[in-house]
């Protein structure tokens, strides 16, 4: 069986993923490109003695790569081995897409052009002459509609056809004057023994004239570079003078645009009429009503996420604890039993519990993205967020952050600019996630009158968000000088989402989430379990066992058991650690128990409640337990309680979130900064609050 490797490229929003999904019998592999966290999709198809391997590259507007994802695609196109390019374009905006197609044609590789969404053009009464288009470009053209599964089946056939053909007429001729310079320069380039192929020489020359840094790097180390560099400068000067322009890049942009325009005029019939998008946009991005409508959508998404998401929560919780109990019964008693049933399963369960919320949130975000509304939301909010050094699109991850920081970091991928993305990710932790709620509820119940509880909780959430915006502004001023990167964004037309694509996206996200949470949380849970269970003080256990045996009432027995648990924990590595770090937290009024609870909150914020419960010797307790609240009031003063709330608000999110950040941000400098700064900031803020309160006489 012969193998053909093809790459699928196209501008964003042309429906590449839908085409991949529509190709029948395809096996889909999803992973990441080596070294980067950009998703990589690959399908394999078998057809007439051929094995077709199609790699779906991230969307790219132009070979002048700009976003991280575009760089991945460009690098792949320039450096990897493949046989055929499948270039997908949107029939509705053929002219703009052809500009990129013309850039690709400069490579003179075997290529087929897939003109997708032809159904939308035909609905409006338009048409495209595929035969003519194919003649003009010199490559095969297929008209498709992934939605109607039209023409998609032809892709494998055409792929094999062009693979087997030896000819390629695909060459774009520019203005005579430009061709002259290209000819001169490629002759020099061909003198180098490293470049034998005249096609590659021509392509490199064009890219060099367009000041392509990636190609510049390739050529830079060749011995021919000196001669070429000089000739290149002269060519550029001649062209700039000839065409009265400041930059040769403009020349190529204008040439390609003119060419694309004339091609569209020859092959396409499109009567213009007001589309559905125009009508919807008149309402949805209305200067006055746009914002309230948007806020309503967000509110609805949150309601759905938490209302519907919380329904299966108890059920999952029950199933997980039943499973742990059952396993406890059948596994031989001992450390292994304990680590699995007390450590790993509850911890992994606590994460799986959030899966429904996360899925609903993701479904909502995907819907916003697929229908084209996301770009409108960014458009509406850009002005406000710009004041804080963020950009419009940052709103989506920030909103997700109130649910769970893990998917929020992933949602930050919608930000294409690396700086904007990094700043957004660095402040996401200040959006209070749902796991912190139990801690707040407990402390508010213990230290505030019931009638103001709701307001305090609301204040905590708002203060977190405001702090996030302020920090964003500071980061922008201190670390990334200047204004946020300019904002040029395509507003795709509104489309009905494809159910298949939605389901596919959701399935991929779920798989990645479970894999990450499963491996990571299981690992940390084991460590925490170990640290809190060892070393075992046999003498202490012995003394308490005797006491428990002689206990008169059940109540006393429970009390002794709790005391034993507390003492064991105090002696454990975790307890020793708590005592060791007590000096750090002493200025905030914390005792060693609060210190341990704070540290354990790094594993997951809910753990703060259970740790405090264990340490203050009340055994099993939740945030509504009144004896527990009583104990807290006796042991913690108001100032320290406020300090703890501030710490919880600001310091590092849970390890699952932190590991997601590490996976998304490869630079160690940023990882280190991210790991340190929220904790330092949290400490300082808590310290200030504690001291201001003590001066005020609390």
């Amino acid at each position, binding site marked *: 069986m012969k193998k053909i490797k093809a790459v699928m490229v196209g501008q964003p929003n042309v429906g590449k993923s839908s085409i991949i999904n529509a190709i029948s019998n395809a096996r889909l592999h999803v992973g990441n490109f080596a070294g980067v966290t950009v998703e990589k999709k690959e399908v394999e198809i078998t057809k007439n003695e051929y094995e077709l391997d199609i790699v779906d590259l991230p969307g790219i507007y132009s070979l002048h790569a*700009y976003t991280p994802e575009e760089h991945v695609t460009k690098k792949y196109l320039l450096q990897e081995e493949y046989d055929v390019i499948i270039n997908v374009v949107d029939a509705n905006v053929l002219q703009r897409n052809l500009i990129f197609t013309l850039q690709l044609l400069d490579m003179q590789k075997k290529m087929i052009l897939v003109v997708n969404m032809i159904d939308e053009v035909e609905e409006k009464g338009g048409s495209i002459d595929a035969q003519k288009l194919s003649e003009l470009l010199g490559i095969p053209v297929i008209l498709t509609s992934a939605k109607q599964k039209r023409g998609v089946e032809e892709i494998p056939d055409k792929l094999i056809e062009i693979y087997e053909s030896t000819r390629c007429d695909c060459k774009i001729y520019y203005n005579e004057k430009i061709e002259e310079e290209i000819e001169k320069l490629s002759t020099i380039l061909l003198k180098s023994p490293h470049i034998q192929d005249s096609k590659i020489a021509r392509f490199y020359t064009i890219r060099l004239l367009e000041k392509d840094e990636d190609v510049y790097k390739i050529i830079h180390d060749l011995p021919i570079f000196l001669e070429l560099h000089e000739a290149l400068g002269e060519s550029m000067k001649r062209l700039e003078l000839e065409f009265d322009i400041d930059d040769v890049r403009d020349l190529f942009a204008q040439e390609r645009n003119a060419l694309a325009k004339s091609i569209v005029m020859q092959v396409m019939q499109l009567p213009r009429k007001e589309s559905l998008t125009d009508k919807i946009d008149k309402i949805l991005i209305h200067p006055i009503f746009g914002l309230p409508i948007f806020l309503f959508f967000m509110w609805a998404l949150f309601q759905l996420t938490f209302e519907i998401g919380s329904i299966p929560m108890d059920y999952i919780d029950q199933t997980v604890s039943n499973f742990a109990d059952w396993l406890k019964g059948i596994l031989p008693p001992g450390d292994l039993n304990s680590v699995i049933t007390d450590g790993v399963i509850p911890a992994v369960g606590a994460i799986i519990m959030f899966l429904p919320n996360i899925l609903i949130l993701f479904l909502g975000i995907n819907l916003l993205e697929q229908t084209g509304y996301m770009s409108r939301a960014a458009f509406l909010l850009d002005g406000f967020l710009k004041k804080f050094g963020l950009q419009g699109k940052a709103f989506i991850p920030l909103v997700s952050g109130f649910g769970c920081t893990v998917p929020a970091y992933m949602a930050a991928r919608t930000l294409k600019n690396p700086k904007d993305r990094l700043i957004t990710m660095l402040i996401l932790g200040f959006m209070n996630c749902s796991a912190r709620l139990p801690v707040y509820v407990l402390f508010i119940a213990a230290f505030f009158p019931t009638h103001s509880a709701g307001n305090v909780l609301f204040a905590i959430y708002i203060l977190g968000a405001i702090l996030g915006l302020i920090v964003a502004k500071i980061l922008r001023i201190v670390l990334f000088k200047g204004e946020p990167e300019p904002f040029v964004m395509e507003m795709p037309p509104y489309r009905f989402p494809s159910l298949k694509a939605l389901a596919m996206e959701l399935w991929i996200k779920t798989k990645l989430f479970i894999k990450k949470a499963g491996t990571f949380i299981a690992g940390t849970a084991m460590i925490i379990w170990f640290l809190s269970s060892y070393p075992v003080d046999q003498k202490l256990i012995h003394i308490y066992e005797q006491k428990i045996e002689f206990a008169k009432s059940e109540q006393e027995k429970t009390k002794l058991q709790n005391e034993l648990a507390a003492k064991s924990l105090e002696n454990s590595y975790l307890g020793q650690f708590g005592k060791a770090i007590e000096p750090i937290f002493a200025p905030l009024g914390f005792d060693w128990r609060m210190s341990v609870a704070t540290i354990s909150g790094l594993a997951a914020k809910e753990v703060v409640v259970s740790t405090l419960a264990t340490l203050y010797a009340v055994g099993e307790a939740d945030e509504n337990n009144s004896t527990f609240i009583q104990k807290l009031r006796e042991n913690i003063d108001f100032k320290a309680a406020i300090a703890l709330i501030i710490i919880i608000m600001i310091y590092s999110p849970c390890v699952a979130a932190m590991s997601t950040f590490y996976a998304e941000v490869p630079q160690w400098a940023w990882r280190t900064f991210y790991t340190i700064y929220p904790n330092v900031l949290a400490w300082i803020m808590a310290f200030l609050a504690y001291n201001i309160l003590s001066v005020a006489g609390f």
Partner: protein
Amino acid sequence: MRVSDMKIGDEAVIKKVTAEEPIRSRLYAMGITRGNRIKLLDHTLKKQTWEVEIEGTRVALRDEEAKSIEVEK
């Protein structure tokens, strides 16, 4: 005249793009190139963000970018 001077619904022909790289190339990729027709569709309340249409593509821009596109009616 620049895009930021246009009124909603106005159409014009692009004369020159003065933005710096890499924004200029990004604008070109969106079809904002000399000779193409541009239509102003919408802007936000304080005219900080603009929506334009070029040859069938809708693009959102900031004030700075809108100012960098010279047009002629």
